[in-house]
């Protein structure tokens, strides 16, 4: 099975390493044609404005939207989640979504600047009893989530790991630790898409 990693900018290497440890091929994706033959796509951390702008310019954004309309699984971490969100709040007000599809409003850098970045343990019941140790870096905050969005993990009372059909998104970075469970969870989703098609992932 092949799960692509969007390789415009950001921590591409870390996501690829996690997927490869799970025995999944993880080609880099920069161009629209590189989406073909994939069972899913991970969008890494980075700067969402840089990644969104360059995806738009190369036609990759439109191509990915078309794939997503067929139920293609995508996991966005941090910047990747901002790209998936339907609404993005920043210091200059609410802006249009980049790719969209995930019915949430996210606020950029809403956990504070870099000096407030942190590591924490998040309980995620679908991944078993042991909490997931993850890293929040200038993280986006999920401010509101629509009814189709399932919250899989919370920090205090706030959603930080969410799922909506074929889409998975986290405020944090599981790829910066050695815990592979979230990548395994997403790989299983991609496997179902490959075997049983989009209907198996519909909410």
């Amino acid at each position, binding site marked *: 099975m092949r799960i692509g990693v969007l390789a415009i900018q*950001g921590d591409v290497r870390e996501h690829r390493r996690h997927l490869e440890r799970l025995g999944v091929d993880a080609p880099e994706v*920069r161009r629209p044609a590189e989406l073909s033959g994939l069972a899913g796509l991970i969008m890494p951390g*980075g*700067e969402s404005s840089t990644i969104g702008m360059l995806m738009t310019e190369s036609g990759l954004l439109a191509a990915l939207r078309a794939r997503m309309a067929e139920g293609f699984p995508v996991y966005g971490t941090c910047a990747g989640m901002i790209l998936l969100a339907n609404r993005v709040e920043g210091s200059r007000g609410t802006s249009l979504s980049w790719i969209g599809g995930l019915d949430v409003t996210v606020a950029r850098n809403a956990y504070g600047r870099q000096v407030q*970045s942190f590591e924490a*343990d*998040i309980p995620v019941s679908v991944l078993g009893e042991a909490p997931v140790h993850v890293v929040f870096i200038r993280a986006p905050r999920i401010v509101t989530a629509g009814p189709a969005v399932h919250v899989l993990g919370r920090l205090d009372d706030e959603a930080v790991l969410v799922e909506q059909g074929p889409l998975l998104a986290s405020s944090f970075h599981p790829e910066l630790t050695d815990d592979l469970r979230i990548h395994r969870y997403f790989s299983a989703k991609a496997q179902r898409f490959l075997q049983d098609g989009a209907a198996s992932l519909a909410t």
Partner: protein
Amino acid sequence: MAQKMNQREQGTAGVKTGLAEMLKGGVIMDVTTPEQAVIAEQAGAVAVMALERVPADIRAAGGVARMADPAIVKAINAAVEIPVMAKARIGHFVEAQVLEALEVDYIDESEVLTPADEQYHIDKWNFNVPFVCGARNLGEALRRIAEGAAMIRTKGEPGTGNVVEAVRHLRTVLGEIRRVTAAPAEELGTLAKEFGAPLELVRRVKEMGRLPVVHFVAGGIATPADAALMMQLGADGIFVGSGIFKSQNPAAMARAIVRATLHYNDPAVIAEVSESVGQAMPGLEMSTLAQSDRMQERGW
């Protein structure tokens, strides 16, 4: 209230090096005003470096170059969503404390400013904010990492618009990494001694086959092709100092350098983005620089 909160650990090594990981493949641009910061952000910069003057102007002005006025740093912080870095003088830990209090996202302990201490660099472990430091070779890079740097940039020669020193320093570091990875375990101690670097970090380099932190390049990058050259040579990303706002058309140059950094392996794209981008900054030939004007010699 603390009982209910999940335990949050700030300022960990994972958090500090983590931000640098997110910058990979990107371009970090020197800016001196909030307006320039917005131009950089809109062009696709992954971070900006807040400064009072770009290196070419520091070079021209002479005298002592210091940390930027906090008013400039605050205004730039407020103007953009992307991370803001700022420079402290080598060894000037109080400038670093001030920048941390201003909540900059990264501190560059930089040879572009006049050093405050000619023996000791800042003890960077004491800070929650991460540091990037310059290096010309592997030993210098590993000494900075041992002091707590969470990111390295090879130095080049700032403010010259001449990429030759940046190439030299990147090739030197990568060549020395190849020596370490090729050496058997029993030779690492002697290599550590030769490089003046901690053995533990030399071992990490051998294990990883690269620097243990993210490795950008800086100093003299002035065109899209310069940026792509550094990426093809193996850099994780690019700092552009004077190269953007000393060029004829900063917005176009900034965008072109961002695109060339992404598509660094695609000459057709580099050709396309280089066309009609306006004049690059004027360059300086190295042999015209007096030894005392070479910023790269600062730091030890």
